[in-house]
């Protein structure tokens, strides 16, 4: 990572994209593509699909940049959402079979050390808040966020009724919100 990454102004770059400034778009891509590619790949688990998702999402970022409102939140959060949603849209469309990967995915999460951050994120806070959650709620949220599992896929993976999974996620999110506030 470039040492000066802290200085990169994601909000200004996204607003410049909205004005049609290609250089800003390229900068943004060069900053974030490997991370966002990782996000898409984790969800889709296929290189070609992940790359297509990344490409399509960045086109959306370019086209939708004018809808970003810097008064409401960060540009990075906005960008991650565009990429995650694009990858999720593709994953849902695939009607993929998750059963085979379930145990692997779960062990990934259980044993997953928190990756070192670059000092910019409030990762420590969210990690602590996740740790405070009952394990099944934590796992459900991580399966949803990181692996892009639907409620149904999580229910299958955790061999738990759908309604229970929905409740875990809803309550888990509510606890996270409270913990992070």
């Amino acid at each position, binding site marked *: 990572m470039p040492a000066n990454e802290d200085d990169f102004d994601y909000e200004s770059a996204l607003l410049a994209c909205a004005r049609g400034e290609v250089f800003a778009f390229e900068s943004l891509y060069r900053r974030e593509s490997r991370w966002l590619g990782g996000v898409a790949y984790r969800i889709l688990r296929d290189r070609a699909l992940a790359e297509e998702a990344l490409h399509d999402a960045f086109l959306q970022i370019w086209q939708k940049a004018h809808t970003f409102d810097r008064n409401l939140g960060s540009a990075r959060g906005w960008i991650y959402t565009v990429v995650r949603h694009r990858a999720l849209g593709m994953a849902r469309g695939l009607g993929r079979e998750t059963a085979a990967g379930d145990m692997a995915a779960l062990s990934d999460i259980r044993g997953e050390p928190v990756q070192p951050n670059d000092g910019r994120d409030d990762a420590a*806070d969210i990690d602590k808040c996740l740790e405070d959650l009952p394990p099944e709620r934590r796992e459900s949220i991580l399966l949803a966020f990181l692996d892009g599992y639907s409620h149904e896929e999580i229910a299958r993976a955790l061999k738990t009724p759908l309604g229970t999974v929905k409740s875990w996620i809803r309550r888990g999110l509510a606890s996270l919100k409270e913990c992070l506030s």
Partner: protein
Amino acid sequence: MSDQHSQDSQPAPEDLAAQYVLGMLDAEAQQAAEKRVTSDRAFAREVYQWQDRLLPLGRRVAPYAVPASILRRLLQHVMPPARAATSWWMRAGLWQGVSALSIALAVALAMRGAHEPAVSQVPRYLAVLNSPGNEVLWVVEVATGDTLRLKPVGTMPVVPSAKALQFWTKPKGADKPTSLGLVPVGQALELPRASLPAVESEQLFEVTLEPEYGSPTGRPTGPILAIGRMIAL
């Protein structure tokens, strides 16, 4: 669970933003929520807050080695159509990735230039200014008419508000760059050769991002947007 009665209905409004960001809604509800973000500010605020709450989790994912072809495809989509202009200078934009020091490029450009009717416009010196991403952004030409021209050939960089592009040169052996003034975005800049400290091979030219009225120190203070060295033809 006491609240399982809601399991098959849509989430309560206060949950909706979180469920939307997480991507848990069915396709139709997901699309409806996406639309609502643009029209319902209170809902949008909730959505942005959830985006930022969950953002650090994205860093748990290992980075991915993204092939360069994706950026190339993206840039083809987002480039403005101006690149199709017929000026021979614009052809320099096709030489993406070619080093500014490439003699082959300079010769190719010079030969195209030689087809221009006015012999006096044939460049005698040429520098191709590349972005850090190796995109050709400007060409510097010193023609026999004793005029230096800085011509935009690529997609112009971002100039945030209260910032400006500044043009610099540094002859071989000089201890610091000399400012050649501010650059109007997307327009050619012409300077009398006499305003240059020198005109010679290997002379460095660069464009940096500076405060609105130029560098306050007389030296480049901002990031280099494009840089290249002069070649004698």
